[in-house]
């Protein structure tokens, strides 16, 4: 699972910053069929969360209508220095995480 995060490393207090997160995942919709006509089982990421110093600032519930290698871009207000935690949870409960440090001046 390759995860790519785009977040500023520093910001002024009160700035609205853009956060971008992408993870490598097929997001198998469950509607496709293999070469023998058998349905391919659904396998998708169900949730994405962004925690800012432990507090959830953005959450997404994902469905098969989200493209493979889900990309999400959203905003948050820089309030204090700390960590941004990005977490993906798949339909079986498996999680993937990535962190970014943010310095607020």
């Amino acid at each position, binding site marked *: 699972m390759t995860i790519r995060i785009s977040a500023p490393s520093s910001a002024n207090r009160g700035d609205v910053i853009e956060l971008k997160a992408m993870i490598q995942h097929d997001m198998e919709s469950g509607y496709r069929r293999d070469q023998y006509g058998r349905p391919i089982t659904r396998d998708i990421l169900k949730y994405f969360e962004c925690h800012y110093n432990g507090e*959830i*600032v953005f959450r997404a*519930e994902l469905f098969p*209508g*989200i493209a493979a290698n*889900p*990309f999400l871009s*959203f905003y*948050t*207000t820089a309030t204090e220095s700390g960590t941004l935690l990005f977490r993906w949870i798949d339909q079986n409960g498996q999680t993937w995480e990535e962190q970014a440090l943010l310095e607020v001046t």
Partner: protein
Amino acid sequence: MSGKQHASTLPGLRRRALLKGALAVTGAAYLPASIAAPEDVDAAVAELFGSRTPQPGKVTVKIPPISENGYSVPLSVKVDSPMTAQNHVVRIAVFAEENPIALVANFELGQRAGKASIQSRIRMGGSQRIRAVAEMSDGSLWSGYAFSIVTLAACVV
């Protein structure tokens, strides 16, 4: 069925039998009962938001007018909101009326978002309207939509 073009080469009865046979074959082998039919968007909206009806306005949905690849269509949703503690967006739900599951994504935001703007990439199972419904902190619902012609549809069979 474009039977007319071949009318001169095949006698009527035989042609009909052939067509029936062809239908039976394609029907049985390639169109299983589980084929994904589009879901009703209004029902999906009601399931998520209850009996409240969204008013048009405040929500701007952007997708390319023509999408060559329905497997990945860039989507942008912006909601006109000051994003203060008293007045902010709490949820943005995206619906695709031609997809087997109308609800594409359900984003939860808060006053800490600073800006009610999200971007993602979605799948589109055909040319259609993409609708976004935003729920405000006061409970009101607003909606907006955009249309895209999809050349290669995604994920339906």
